[in-house]
């Protein structure tokens, strides 16, 4: 008895699906074209504000150099490789990992480095801390503050 009821339901469901498919196939073409923007909107990304307005992503240059500033200079100095630009037949040296730049080792601080990739869909964030080595600094403090003869 239960199986017969289920078979009736299955036949009814098949009929409904067939009718719906034929009805959608009979729809005029302009209604199909109206569905196209909906498909495009479904393909947009989460970060997009509106179609046509692109979100800007930072693309910081990895191989920038530092120069002395000022309008009164008679010669500017380049920080890497100091003090002058090297001739083109020499070749260049780059630090490809920004946290390892030597000028960050000059003083204790913290810094964050951001790198966007994959057209801004991904971002790598690196946090770097530069500090004095604790044990050596403690030993140095003990020496300079207690052990050293002040003279």
């Amino acid at each position, binding site marked *: 008895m239960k199986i017969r009821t289920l078979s009736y339901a299955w036949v009814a469901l098949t009929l409904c699906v067939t009718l719906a498919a034929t009805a959608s196939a009979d729809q005029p073409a302009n209604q199909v074209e109206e569905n196209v923007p909906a498909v495009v909107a479904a393909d947009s990304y989460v970060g997009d504000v509106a179609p046509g307005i692109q979100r800007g992503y930072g693309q910081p240059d990895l191989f*920038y*150099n*530092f*120069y*002395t*500033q*000022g*309008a*009164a*200079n*008679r*010669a*500017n*100095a*380049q*920080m890497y490789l*100091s*003090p*002058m*630009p090297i001739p083109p037949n020499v070749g260049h040296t780059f630090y490809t990992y920004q946290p390892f730049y030597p*000028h960050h080792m*000059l*003083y*204790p*601080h913290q810094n964050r480095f951001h790198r966007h990739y994959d057209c801004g869909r991904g971002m790598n964030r690196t946090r770097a801390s530069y*500090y004095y080595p604790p044990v050596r600094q403690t030993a140095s403090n003990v020496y300079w503050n207690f052990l050293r003869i002040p003279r």
Partner: protein
Amino acid sequence: MIHRIILAVGLVTASIAASQTSATAGDPYGMAQVWSYNFSMNRPWHGNYYNQMYGQPLALIVPPTAHMRQTYSWGVSQNLMYPIHHQFGRSANSPGAARGRFYGTPKWPSHTDQFGTYYVRGPW
């Protein structure tokens, strides 16, 4: 209960005190940085002498937290302290890294500026 509250307050205070790594200088608004920048805009980073190894003044990178330099010469009144205004920035302006016209180190140097090495603070 009161013991727990006291313990919690103590822990929070200790964590706050431990999070402050070092005392900062009394320059909360970066005024000294602005002054140094303004001063460095209209005076050169170098002196009148070139470094003997490079043929032009040599920029010696010092920490960006450094703020004074000492010069030595003959006589007590010639030992002077100057602020270090200049700091390395991003882009190069004119005259680029071209060679200027500088003096060489004298055969008998009488001043530390005559060696052609001048301090420039590193970038932040």
